[in-house]
């Protein structure tokens, strides 16, 4: 569609306009709340929210250290979780014995609600970055693990037999057949896992920390400062989108071999 971006931006603006109309005290007659300030108290006011964001980034420029901490936590959780998931996924899928032994444990760990581990990680690793990274890793690991496992299991037996006939050693099979075959699965999971790494970092901060965007939101909630909470959420959302776009970029680069739907070009 030609004006896709325009429509998307228009929708965003429309949401903020409606939000503004419904929450600004005295602009519309009350129809839900008795007091015309209550809507603003519960839902925040877009103008003030953007003022808050402006202050964070430009006037006071004090959000950068918090944002940096959150992004470092996210990046570390994402990287460590992905590498661990990839390694374990390949190992367990390629060695049936280990896979069979580990199977019930992997399932048990995956079905456990891992957010409840956050306080335990705080005790183990302290209130710094490490405990948040640990939480993020537990979230990311399983997503990547299951996708790699599936990817290896779904390698075409003919392609595998062909590679063996062409003289591929065990190591070459791993590098040239299993890994590329698994990457398509891994990439579909990376979009989910980069989001979860972010969730891990913010939830970890929210449950106990001295820095990070989650910490800012927690502070603001303590003071019933709904505008700051909303501002924090908006900033987090924007950065989650940026991270996702980054993954998409890498994916397009590495997955050039995959057939895209409807590849003919309209003339």
């Amino acid at each position, binding site marked *: 569609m030609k004006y896709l971006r325009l429509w998307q931006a228009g929708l965003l603006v429309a949401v903020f306009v409606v939000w503004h109309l419904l929450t600004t005290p005295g602009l519309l007659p009350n129809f839900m709340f008795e007091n015309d300030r209550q809507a603003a108290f519960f839902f925040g006011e877009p103008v003030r929210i953007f003022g808050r964001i402006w202050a964070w980034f430009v006037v006071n420029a004090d959000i950068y250290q918090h944002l940096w901490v959150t992004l470092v936590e996210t990046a570390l959780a994402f990287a460590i979780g992905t590498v661990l998931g990839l390694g374990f996924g390949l190992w367990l899928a*390629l060695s*049936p014995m280990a896979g069979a032994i580990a199977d019930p444990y992997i399932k048990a760990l995956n079905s456990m609600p891992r957010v409840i581990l956050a306080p335990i990680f705080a005790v183990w690793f302290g209130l710094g970055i490490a405990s948040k990274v640990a939480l993020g890793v537990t979230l990311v690991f399983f997503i990547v693990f299951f996708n790699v496992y599936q990817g290896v299991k779904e390698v*075409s*037996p*003919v*392609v*595998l*037999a*062909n*590679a*063996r*006939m*062409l*003289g*591929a*050693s*065990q190591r*070459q*099979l791993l590098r*040239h*057949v299993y890994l*590329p*075959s698994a*990457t398509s699965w891994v990439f579909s999971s990376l979009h989910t896992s980069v989001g979860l790494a972010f969730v891990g970092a913010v939830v970890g901060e929210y449950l106990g920390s001295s820095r990070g965007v989650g910490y800012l939101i927690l502070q603001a909630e303590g003071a019933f400062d709904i505008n700051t909470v909303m501002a924090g959420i908006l900033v987090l959302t924007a950065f989650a989108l940026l991270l996702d776009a980054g993954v998409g970029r890498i994916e397009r680069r590495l997955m*050039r*071999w*995959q*057939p895209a739907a409807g590849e003919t070009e309209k003339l």
Partner: protein
Amino acid sequence: MNAAFGASNARRRRQTRGDAEVARVDARLNSKGSSLLADDLTAFSPDALPSPPALSLAGVTCTFADKADPSRRYTAVRDVTLAVGAGEFVSVVGPTGCGKSTLLNVAAGLLAPSSGTVEVFGTPLAGINRRAGYMFQTDSLMPWRTALQNVAAGLEFRGSDRCEEQAQEWLKRVGLGAFGDRYPHQLSGGMRKRVGLAQTLVLDPDIILMDEPFSALDVQTRQLMENEVLAIWAEKKKAVLFITHDLDEAIAMSDRVVCLSAGPASHPIGEFAIDLARPRDVAEVRATPRFVELHQAIWSVLREEVLAGYRQQLAA
């Protein structure tokens, strides 16, 4: 279990030579039944050749056990004795589901036979057959590699230098010189087959195994490819074991046609020397009287088996 880890059983399952000899004699007796036998059959038998044949299967039996219920067994091929001389083009024809592909996988070393021996140039085969190239029935190119990278793959695995150059040369030879940077999904079925052919032949194997390589192609492309393969074969004179269900194709291309009985437990039931003059054009040779004669003779042996195979599939 993964195919990649199953190759080491070959040695364990190997049988004694004595049994294999008996089986070989058996198979020869079996094949005496047909009317138009290759009269100089012994010339093709491994014992009579001065140098060992490129590929020799002796008394090969393959029995598969059901995974869920090990007591249910299926014997795909039983007591197959088959030799392909160096530089000889041998086709195996048989009704659908008669274990032709099983036989080829055994020759490739991808599958260890339940009993019987496989020898490659006189040496017992253990694991993958390193001297053989295999053209598969279905798409076997690595979809994440371009055509050129696919052709170069074997050279790369074997650690040769000038991989890309040699691969480019072969791509040109199969008429795809300009398509090196395309991914398999961007190529047509016929082009993918050509890439597969180049991928196999660039390694210059002494034995070429082909499993109905052209069955998925349309008639025109198929004849082009058949002629192409014949031209390359005539130039290089490799041993070829060609599996097909198409009798026309088998006669048009081979020196010798081996008929398999209907499965289960299929075995060779006839062997025919094809004395058509070379070089052949697969389309033209079909019109010659000798071709028709051979076709009738082989079909008279094969017809019963095809019907038997069909009845079994209907009953199942």
